[in-house]
């Protein structure tokens, strides 16, 4: 008889538990449905050599990073030094997806701040970005030898994320 009067309390405690856990989550983050799926096909002109094309398939057989960037993107400058360092290490090739940018602006930006990218693809209209589920730059994808997306990092890559998540994953994928 007395137990059913505790029901409201039980329901509340369960809800409070979820809310408490929710405090440590970010409600605006968008998990990518593409992780674990083949990276979408694309064929775009290269940033530096407009007549040459670059496509997803040209990278089959190797593990690579796809970094979405733009000259108008302020947070991209935050992560840029890390990518410069990474490219010097030579552990994994970094390909750039220059997103909704004017070619001249993008080229100049790389001149000013350095170019860590093996090749940058020029996605002027941003349609390839949409195919990859890009909604805000910068974003970085880890793609394996079979062309499957294994990880997506939204926002500027931090040293910690690189050290704890991205590089270990890259190393593991290279072994397989």
């Amino acid at each position, binding site marked *: 008889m007395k137990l059913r009067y505790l029901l409201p309390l039980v329901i509340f405690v369960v809800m409070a538990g979820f809310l408490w856990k929710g405090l440590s989550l970010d409600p*605006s983050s*968008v*998990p990518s*449905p593409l992780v674990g799926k083949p990276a979408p096909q694309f064929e775009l002109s290269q940033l530096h050599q407009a007549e040459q094309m670059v496509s997803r398939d040209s990278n089959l057989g190797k593990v690579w990073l796809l970094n979405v960037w733009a000259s108008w993107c302020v947070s991209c400058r935050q992560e840029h030094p890390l990518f410069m360092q990474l490219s010097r290490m030579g552990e994994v090739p970094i390909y750039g997806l220059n997103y909704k940018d004017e070619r001249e602006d993008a080229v100049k930006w790389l001149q000013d701040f350095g170019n860590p990218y093996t090749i940058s693809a020029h996605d002027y209209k941003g349609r390839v970005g*949409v195919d990859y589920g890009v*909604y*805000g730059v910068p974003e970085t994808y880890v793609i394996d030898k079979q062309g499957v997306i294994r990880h997506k990092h939204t926002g500027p890559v931090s040293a910690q994320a690189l050290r704890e998540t991205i590089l270990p994953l890259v190393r593991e994928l290279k072994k397989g």
Partner: protein
Amino acid sequence: MKNILLLALLCLSLPLSYQVQAKEAEYTTGAPEIHGRVMGVSEELRCLVCQGQSLGDSNSEFAVDMRAQIQEMMEGGMSDRQVIDFMVERYGDYVRYRPPFNATTMLLWFGPFILLGVGVAVLYTNVLRRRKQIDETPLTEEQHHRAAELLKEGSGEDKA
């Protein structure tokens, strides 16, 4: 046809008046039928860079770009359903304001109606049980009198 005539007339009348060439304004997103559909679908999709606005409501660059792309897709023949599926494929269920209907959202969709059923059932068992439990003794003659007096008193006061 009417527009062309109007335009021609206005062109002819230009030297004689200061009136500017006016025309029926064009939709920002294509032909009328497409426009309606674009806005309709945009209202069902979340603007991912905004704080809780739909693609239809927002004027952010992202939203404007997306609406343009949706317009292109529809002009290319995609149906509303296909456009939404396209977006969900790339951005996940999160981009739709209508939660999907799958194992994880069963509780969400059925919950309220189950709760309604339970509530009504509990209510009825309670009411029926109450009927048996409560034993109401009718008022005695004296109590009846007293009640009538009180009522008269009360209504008398109200009139005053």
